[in-house]
């Protein structure tokens, strides 16, 4: 499957495999990977696909725009962004996720769908369809020369930040007791509870970490796309959700890889397709997603399950 994907890629990409496109694609993949972790972490613990994740990022981006409107220092803007996203995450967990914990996956998915639209329409009421501009960090868009290629600073920042965040998360999951609890809960929530894992604590922490990642993503996305509208990060979230399912939703590593992959592929295709075809980029991506799902419905990077699960 991977070889098929790679060969179809080289077909599309042709001469576009130069370093410039590569680096940008990797940076996009890194941002998508962070979003994938945020979605995958909550799914692991709560078995809930958070469709509203993009709206958390949107909220953070609006916080940044709000701060830059008032010429507040960058640090304050970022702090406000984190505060807004985290408060919203916790509220979402308390009001929506927790009461729905016993419901089926479909009900929870539609509920987060509703929350997503709720937040989006509140943003529309509040900020209007044209949105606001977040300009305080745009200097990160300036290029620096590395060897023969011009790389925007944000590209490097994105890759480094993603690596650091993922590293910290691995440490948290493997070296602390709350990390152990979360891993246990994601394997078997009921048994973990019987063994003394506190359900509300674990789901709260998972949502909190996912929220922090959303805030980080909000900061990095506003650098690249300073115009913040109510549909900010919506398209990205849809792609990441697809990527997460393609990678394999039930485990964090495959989910992250899936997120990275779809970001990387869309970066490559976006950089390499001629303009008259690049408007069909979403079709190419979604087509690939369907193809992969048909061949590996449980995920590209997961071990194949045996027979059909019984009850």
């Amino acid at each position: 499957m991977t070889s098929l994907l790679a060969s179809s890629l080289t077909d599309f990409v042709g001469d576009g495999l130069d370093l410039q496109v590569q680096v940008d694609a990797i940076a996009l993949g890194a941002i998508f990977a962070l979003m994938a972790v945020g979605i995958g972490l909550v799914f692991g613990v709560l078995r809930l696909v958070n469709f509203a994740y993009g709206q958390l990022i949107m909220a953070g981006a609006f916080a940044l725009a709000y701060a830059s409107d008032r010429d507040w220092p960058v640090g304050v803007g970022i702090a406000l962004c984190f505060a807004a996203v985290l408060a919203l995450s916790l509220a979402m967990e308390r009001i929506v996720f927790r009461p729905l914990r016993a419901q089926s996956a479909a009900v929870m998915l539609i509920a987060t769908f509703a929350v997503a639209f709720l937040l989006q329409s509140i943003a529309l009421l509040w900020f209007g369809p044209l949105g606001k501009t977040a300009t305080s960090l745009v200097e990160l868009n300036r290029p620096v020369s590395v060897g023969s290629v011009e790389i925007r600073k944000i590209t490097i920042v994105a890759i480094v930040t993603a690596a650091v965040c993922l590293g910290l998360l691995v440490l948290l999951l493997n070296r602390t007791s709350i990390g152990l609890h979360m891993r246990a809960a994601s394997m078997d929530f009921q048994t973990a509870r019987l063994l003394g894992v506190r359900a509300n604590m674990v789901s709260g922490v998972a949502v909190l970490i996912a929220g922090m990642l959303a805030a980080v993503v909000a900061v990095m996305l506003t650098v690249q796309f300073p115009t913040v509208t109510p549909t900010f990060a919506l398209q990205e979230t849809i792609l990441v959700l697809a990527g997460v399912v393609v990678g394999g939703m039930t485990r964090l590593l495959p989910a992250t890889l899936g997120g990275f992959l779809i970001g990387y592929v869309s970066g490559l295709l976006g950089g390499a397709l001629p303009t008259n075809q690049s408007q069909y980029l979403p079709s190419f991506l979604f087509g690939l997603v369907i193809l992969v799902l048909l061949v590996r419905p449980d995920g590209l990077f997961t071990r194949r399950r045996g027979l059909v699960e019984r009850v």
Partner: protein
Amino acid sequence: MRTRRAIAELLAPATLVVASAVVGATFARTTEIYFISALISVSIVVALYVFVGNSGVLSFGHISFFAVGAWAAGVLSVPEQEKPATMPYLFDFLGSTTVGNVPSLVIAGSAGGVFALLVGLPLMRLSGLAAGIATFAVLGITNNVLRYYEKIGPGLNAFSSVPETTDLLQATVGALLVIVAAFAYQRSRFGRQLRATREDPAAARAVGVSIYRQRLGAFALSGFLAGFAGGLYIHFLPINVDAVYLDLTFITLAMLVIGGATSLWGAVVGALSVSALDAVLANAENGIEVLGRTIEVPAGTRIVVVSALMALVLILRPSGLTGGREVTFERLARRLRPAVQEAAK
């Protein structure tokens, strides 16, 4: 007993639809459009219900069948001489063909049905999240292609000069036809088999039901009905491609879930009640008079209220307003003694 059940199951939603149409007819022409729009919503939501309700599998893709139906009917019913102005890049056979109202609706349904069948052939092998994301991907592709491929439609522009044949009567007849089709399907052996797979896949398979085939059949039928609803819609409003994407997907799913996804009655109740609320809020956005005082709410309030309501219904009553049950005469009678029922629990 059986026939009595069947009668109630069909009569209740049909009566509700006819009643709303009659109420709508007594209002002024300006208010009528809300009723037409509500009745078309009934068609879409019931189409969605045929697959989602009976199979228990979530589909985000039905608006793409709706869109394909709308595009087919729209492109074919624009008068020939008008086509070069709004859709200059059409394929020759589309540019030189014009059909009437009823044929265009049949074509809309067929286009939706064939598209659903083709999509379903591979996709119905999937289940759970993979199925959800794959249907979402279909929606994304359909929207992307309709947006930019100008040989099959107006691209980014809105349709214009499509004959506005969907009046209150056509919307009512359309909704009734869709309800009858959904009813006939769910009483048939195929509908029963599909519901069996929803309740217990393993047991259904053990008695020889092919999950794949039953889902595929329902998917194609519901694609046909969704396409038909799209045809009704294009003869009502000159829409563009943005009108058939995420917002409509959300609002129709919301209607189905709020009403109760597992019954025909729930689908109709959900569509009509959310439409009613939506119409009231739409009026309130332009200023509404309540008890002598003008109340005006900011534009965009509708989606805020509808999505908050949907989240609320899911949290408090996950099986919807109707509890996902059909109407029976017995339950109607029992409704009159709720206290007894509570005590029995």
